[in-house]
């Protein structure tokens, strides 16, 4: 059985679901960030799969993937900085404990 | 790989196709996993001998003539030593770390052109591959340090991670000038671009101003990446015992050493390929024997770079952590960016001689200016209040 686009889409969907479940169920902010990274990667994998199977001639999809990776890197940097700042404030990284909007 | 395949096709055309493929795969792999660990073993011996001579000692000379069997004795000793795992350690990670330490280092050799047309795999993203793979060694250091459940190990691991992440940036930027000059990321193409000229020497990139600066920056970055003195604060024995491999003994320790040395050797090979002409040298393009001569050139240049690293280890003191960081971010990073501009300038100036002079002077001025900006003022002779 040869690998088709469908396989990759299913894989990416599964990864996305895992990431989503992690982000929704876990309490630790860092794990939530990890789960978000998984979702990001699943999406980028989709882009590359589409590029490979459908539009092999132009590199637009790869461009998109690269920009997504860069944005993900920036996002994780900002996210972790926020986590550290929150940890300094609350002495905890439990997302359920961050209820107040006012510092 | 392709070279061997073609050779097989011309010399033994009767072999079935899969066997030919298999041989052409197996020969480079066997070459890498046999030659480079051998070089590793004897590099340790050379290092100990050279350090001894630098300190007016003899170095190992007991096992075999001139201590030539010393690496074998060391290996046997490390193999037979007890493998200790701390009781509180994270067993699985502790076991995995030395394995992971070796894998990226061995993989680095996959893209090294060791001779004229002799490259295990000619990746068109060779340099990027080198950087991506050498990043992986950070993980091994972190895993080893973290899994040991030891303050010193963890400190060493954190230092290692911070250092490698910091020095990767100027190292990549320093390598960029070569990519700019050749328009390719493949190490084989880069090596080929440096052939020709007077005795196959004059086209080496190290003889251009930007090439020389890039060479120095890349060497510094490579030394920091493989945690060699003066950048060996991850394993600074006077501060944190042995850093991340404090809790390792026996063959796991040997694997860590192997990984470290292999990374060092591989980065020396990459340095040679990118700046010192790779396998190019007098006679490297002769027919029939050219591949052997070029291999000789490559390995002798590589050993030369390794010797310089050892020499530096025998001479310079270790830098402090804050010095390490500020040197990377305030000195190397601006310098490598300036170097990229210099390379671009060189590329677009019509008269190469003029370009050489202009870029050389410009880089010197920038180096001097950066040094002035970063210096803490004149170093005065230290006086002691209570002495005399």
């Amino acid at each position, binding site marked *: 059985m040869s690998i088709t686009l469908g396989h990759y889409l299913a*894989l990416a969907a599964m990864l996305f679901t895992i990431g989503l479940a992690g982000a929704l169920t*876990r309490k630790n902010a860092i794990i939530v960030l990890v789960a978000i990274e998984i979702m990001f990667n699943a999406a980028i994998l989709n882009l590359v799969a589409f590029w490979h199977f459908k539009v092999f001639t132009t590199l637009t999809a790869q461009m998109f993937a690269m920009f997504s990776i860069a944005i993900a890197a920036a996002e994780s940097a900002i996210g972790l900085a926020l986590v550290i700042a929150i940890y300094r404030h609350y002495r905890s990284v439990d997302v359920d404990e961050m209820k107040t909007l006012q510092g | 790989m392709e070279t061997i395949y073609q050779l097989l096709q011309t010399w033994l055309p009767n072999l079935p196709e899969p066997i030919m493929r298999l041989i052409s795969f197996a020969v480079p792999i066997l070459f890498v996993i046999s030659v480079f660990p051998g070089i590793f073993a004897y590099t340790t011996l050379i290092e100990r001998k050279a350090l001894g001579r630098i300190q007016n000692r003899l170095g190992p000379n007991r096992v075999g003539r001139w201590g030539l069997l010393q690496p074998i004795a060391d290996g046997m000793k490390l193999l037979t030593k007890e493998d200790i795992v701390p009781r509180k350690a994270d067993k699985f990670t502790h076991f995995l770390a030395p394995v992971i330490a070796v894998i990226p280092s061995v993989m680095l050799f996959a893209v090294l052109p060791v001779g004229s047309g002799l490259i295990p795999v000619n990746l068109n993203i060779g340099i990027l591959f080198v950087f991506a793979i050498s*990043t992986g060694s950070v993980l091994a250091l972190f895993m080893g340090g973290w899994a040991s459940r030891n303050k010193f190990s963890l400190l060493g691991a954190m230092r290692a991670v911070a250092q490698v*992440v910091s020095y990767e940036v100027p190292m990549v930027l320093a390598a960029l000038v070569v990519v700019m000059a050749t328009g390719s990321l493949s190490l084989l193409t880069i090596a080929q671009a440096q052939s020709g000229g007077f005795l196959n020497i004059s086209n080496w990139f190290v003889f251009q101003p930007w090439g020389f600066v890039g060479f120095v920056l890349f060497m510094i970055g490579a030394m920091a990446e493989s945690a060699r003195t003066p950048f060996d604060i991850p394993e600074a024995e006077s501060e944190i015992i042995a850093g991340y491999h404090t809790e390792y003994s026996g063959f796991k320790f040997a694997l860590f050493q192997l990984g470290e040395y292999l990374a060092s050797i591989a980065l020396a090979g990459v340095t040679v390929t990118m700046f010192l002409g790779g396998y190019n040298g007098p006679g490297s393009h002769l027919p029939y024997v050219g591949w052997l001569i070029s291999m000789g050139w490559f390995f002798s240049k590589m050993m030369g770079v390794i010797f310089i690293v050892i020499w530096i280890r025998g001479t310079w003191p270790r830098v402090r952590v804050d010095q390490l960081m500020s040197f990377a971010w305030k000195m190397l990073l601006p310098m490598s960016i300036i170097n990229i501009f210099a390379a671009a300038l060189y590329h677009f100036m019509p008269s190469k001689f003029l370009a050489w002079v202009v870029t050389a002077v410009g880089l010197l001025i920038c180096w001097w200016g950066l040094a002035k900006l970063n210096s803490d003022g004149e170093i005065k002779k230290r006086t002691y209040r209570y002495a005399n």
Partner: protein
Amino acid sequence: MTTAFWIISAVTLLGAVLAVTLRNLVHCVLALILFFLGIAGHYFLLRADFLGVVQILIYIGAVAVLILFAIMLTRNVTGTEGPREVFGLKWWSGAATAAIIGALVLAAIRRDELSKLPTSTQANSSVLEIGKLLVTDWVVPFEAMAVLLTAALIGAVVIALEEVLRRR
């Protein structure tokens, strides 16, 4: 290609599942690295060599290390989490939401409208092309990305240093 796909997919899924379920934070990140490696393997498999290398370089070399650093800066260094996760309302609702969304997406894929799109097989993914595109057609997004990364850098420093600055 087929065998490689299944193996790499298994590794990727395993890494993802472990990354969101393991108790120890550091183990989570190590599993995440496994996941990233799997994704990079998929990129290589899909002939996007450059993306694969970038994936390793950025995700494993930078993001994972960053997360490890964040763990070291926030939790106790052993990375052990507190009490076991409570399977309360939040957990069940979260898991149910994820399951429903996953089911929807998979159902959409099962419809398989996409495979009817025309297929191309001409490989063209050289780094040279990517580089040329980046500074010609895509130069504006590229520069915007540069600005974004700089802003992120400064923003991260400011957020993380806020407390320190206030204390001074």
